[in-house]
């Protein structure tokens, strides 16, 4: 289960995620982001209520990162999600705040 709240301000896309980013929900994030992606330079994702991420979620994050010229910023990352990002080296290609 994943709730996605997307707001676009100028060239910045703000996403607030709540729930699990897994194989089932990852395509939802991809779809929601794709709708707003035109003209976006950087993406900010609020992970305060994101309890879980699997490799499918990581793939979406990587795809999003590659489709914008600017940064992909994750905020308020949960420790268990953070561990996944660290193991996979995603901490180096995303910006964690």
């Amino acid at each position: 289960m994943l709730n996605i709240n997307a707001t676009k301000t100028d060239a910045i896309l703000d996403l607030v995620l709540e729930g699990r980013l897994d194989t089932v929900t990852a395509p939802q994030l991809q779809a929601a982001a794709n709708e707003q992606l035109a003209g976006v330079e950087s993406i900010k994702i609020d992970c305060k209520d994101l309890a879980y991420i699997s490799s499918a979620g990581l793939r979406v994050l990587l795809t999003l990162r590659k489709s914008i010229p600017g940064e992909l910023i994750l905020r308020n990352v949960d420790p268990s999600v953070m561990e996944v990002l660290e193991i996979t080296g995603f901490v180096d290609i995303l910006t964690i705040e």
Partner: protein
Amino acid sequence: MLKALRSKLAVKIIAGIVGSLLIFAVLSSLIGYSAFEVALEERYADTGYRIGRLAAQIVDADNLDAYLDADYRQTDEYKIAMRRLDNVTQRMNAAFIYILQPVDDEWKEVRFLFETVNDNYELSPYLPGHVRESASEEYSLKYGLIYDGKSEEECVFRSARQTTTGAHVSSLVPVKNSDGDVVGVLCVQLQMVELGPARAKFLKEIALAALVMIALVALAYGWSIRRTVAKPIRRIASETVRFSRDNELPEVSLTDSIKGEDEIKLLAMHVDKMEYAIKNYTENLKTVTSQKDRMEGELNVASGIQQGIIPNTFPPFPERDEFSLYAHMTPAKEVGGDFYDFFFIDDDHLGLVIADVSGKGAPAALFMMATKIMVKNRAQLGGTPAEVLADVNQQLCEGNYENMFVTAWLGILEVSTGVLTTANAGHEYPAICHADGTFEFFKDKHGFVLGGMSGTKYREEVLTLQPGDTLFVYTDGVTEAADRDLHLFGTERLLETLNVSPHAAPEELLGNMAASIHSFANGMEQADDITMLALQYHGQVNHLRTLRIDATQENLTEVSAWIEEMLQILDIPMKEQMQIQLAAEEIYINVANYAYAPGVGPVVIRIGYDMDRHAVKLAFVDQGMPYDPLAKEDPDTTLSAEDREIGGLGIFLVKKTMDNVHYVRSNHSNILTFEKLIDRTDDPIEV
């Protein structure tokens, strides 16, 4: 070939005969001709003598010297005598008649007293008193013999070659006066006019007779050889050809069909005897062969029964995942006495047996059956391996008149703890591989072979198998497999082979071993049964739940919820819960995406908890295509966003966050297991 030989033989024999007959004919012709010539000559000589004696009557022997007087020759007396002598010459067809007297004692020169000449010769006679040389020494000698009174008649033959006047005979007789004294030698020369034609006729007749005789003899011989040699030999030859084709005795034996008592008959008798012996031998061979075929057939059935009673369904206990077990026996051509066995004694104790009966064939197979049944039955009654082997030994010793024996290894595994109790009755050392090591022999203490000696005691060894440990037991068919130079496979090569892939699943381990033996033997026929058994211990799993579900992405939510529920029941800390959830999702999605693609199939998920080690255990079992996700190379996590690949992260996360991640392909299933060790001291609540 045979025809050429035959004609060659006949030609040789007949040519030899004709040749010798020709030589014989020529020789006998020469002898005959010589006798004929002598007879003819004697006849001429005899005629000459008679003419000579007649002529000697005509001349006046008392007054012979008067012939030299020319005046006397004018007398009527002389003329009458001459006319009568001439008459005799002409009538008797003599060539010359003349009287000689010696000029000297040696008769080197002779004096003619008179001579008459046949009218057929246009020669004038020598006048009386004519002196000439003797024609030859023979003449001189014989003139002397007559003149000296030593002989009454002599003759000299002159062949056509010796004289110019043609072949002739000169018959010499004495001319005696009234006192009986020899006063001259009277010679009558007869031309041997009959000699030439008679000789030609004689030779013609002789040659004709010889040719006719030779032809007759050759024909008779040819017929005789054909009848007595060629035909019987041909008969024998055709009989041997017939026999080698039909391999049946003839209706009429050669002995009966060949007459005579010669060497050919002897040959025929021996050929008959030989055929009879071959026929007998063939019949015996047929009988023996069919008996052997039947026995082989029965042994094959025995071998089938023997293999049938050995458990050969794998995995043998699909409901048990504390261990993997695989065993295999490759029987030698001849039925042997190897066997393996495994069975549950109770819910927690697994009996493992490997054994090798002495000898081969039906006795070994029978003894093996008895041993297998006894060991299993006795073990299932309870008791330690040493007790079981001691009792079985006792039973086998009873009535073991054939002194058969069995080497056997018996292990009883307590499945929940991994404690393995073993006893060894003269069998090969087991090999054991610990999870973090390589295969080594477990040198347990051997007792005496089963059936060897009544009252034998067996010692026990106890060891504990840790999860991941593998046990390998085998018979001497493995270590004593030979190559073409009769080198043995040996225990070192056995360990080397096991250690090529020491942590492989039992089935793979046995496959590797069989391949290694096969390549070592290099075509050498397998002399003994090759029997192996391997058990890999996975450890005790307290099964909480099993979920069986179609592996689809859509079902992930249900799977995640189920695992979450299980983990909450186990009271697993949140951090580990998340990690396990993540690992489970990655493995599950992997199965859903690849195992049955493009179709859909089931996956069985088991979750359990090892209370001793505080480990959550998960197993994912699918029957999809063989696929080891762990074999894939880990992604490079240091690359920049642009260079990063999208795939491979899931399994990498599982490896990084879980413990003892393990994949095995067994029984047409992919089995992926992992544990998560939980760092805590309190046990979860019992369920």
